[in-house]
């Protein structure tokens, strides 16, 4: 590399490695990795099934609306959308009491399918109706990962047609 900075051609030595370690320590203070992120990732990877796709997760900015209209926490809702090649889903989370959450979901293409909810210390399976809607009520606050199963009779191909989502907060 053609360089104008003195010392850039010097071999990387222990003092460089020590300086980088100090940068890491400083960054750990300035912008730490969220405390339980590693555990949450490990949990989300501990799936028993092989899956075909990871859905792209998008948070819809209800938050901006909530802040501006001063909605009380009790009535606040959040919407998350998921998109994968074989399906898209929209999930609305609403608070139904202290520390309890309700999920209203809608998957397309519509049809009866199993939706598994993986939660730390609690697993739940629900069915969507013909129109692709599903509900899971009175869930404990925490994190959940959704696993969408194929509709009955759907050609699943590789990976059993399962679509998984990242873990998201209830």
């Amino acid at each position, binding site marked *: *590399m053609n*360089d*104008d*900075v*003195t*010392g*850039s*051609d*010097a*071999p*990387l030595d222990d*003092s*460089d*490695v020590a*300086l*980088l*370690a*100090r*940068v*890491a*320590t*400083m*960054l*750990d*203070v*300035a*912008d730490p*990795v*969220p405390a339980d*992120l*590693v555990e*949450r*990732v*490990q949990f*989300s*990877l501990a*799936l028993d099934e092989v*899956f*075909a*796709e*990871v859905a*792209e*997760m*998008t*948070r*819809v*900015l209800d938050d*901006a*609306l909530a802040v*501006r209209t001063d909605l009380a926490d009790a009535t606040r809702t959040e919407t998350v959308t998921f998109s994968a090649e074989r399906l898209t889903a929209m999930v609305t989370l609403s608070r139904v009491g202290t520390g309890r959450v309700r999920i209203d979901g809608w998957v397309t293409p519509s049809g009866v399918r199993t939706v598994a909810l993986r939660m730390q210390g609690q697993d739940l399976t629900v069915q969507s109706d013909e129109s692709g809607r599903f509900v899971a009520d009175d869930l404990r606050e925490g994190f959940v990962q959704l696993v969408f199963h194929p509709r009955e009779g759907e050609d699943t191909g590789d*990976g059993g047609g399962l679509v*998984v989502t*990242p*873990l*998201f907060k209830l």
Partner: protein
Amino acid sequence: MGRATEAFTRFRDGDRPALDELVATVTPLLWRTVRETGLDVAASEDVVQTVWLALLRKADSIREPGTVVKWLITTARREAWRVSKRVRAEAGRTGGVLGVDDEEQLDLPEQREALPDETVFRTTEQRRLWEHVQLLPPRCRQLISVIAFADRPDYSHIAESLGMPVGSIGPTRGRCLAKLRAQLSSDPEWEGQLS
């Protein structure tokens, strides 16, 4: 061989717990990679998770275990840009509805981190080091911040996946690290030792 390559190799050979080790080892580095693209904390958490799920799905397609860190960083950057584009589009729509002015919208994802509250740093030295890292050209700042969480055998792969030329860091110090050292050594307030 770096710890990541070693853990990934074992995972590929059927050792399931090695995946947890890999996650613990590389997540700090991915966190830095994603945060350096300007995404907020919540969005960055989602990206990091998505990247790991993608690895679980695609592990077999990574032929050379030594490139696993590179694969993870490249995937993380691609996913971060996708999300950041989406966030900006959403913000545009919400802004239109709510009458948020342009200036506020510009604040959205590409904003640099403001100086953390000074009390977060335990020492003056940490605060100075933060300032010096911020003063680096953006690509150098990214490289240094990500490399700081990596093992030495992975340095050159990381530089490459961040779009830096070969030789940016590795056998030699490279321009970015030399620059940081030069800044520190000309700072009378910097009391840390460099050698």
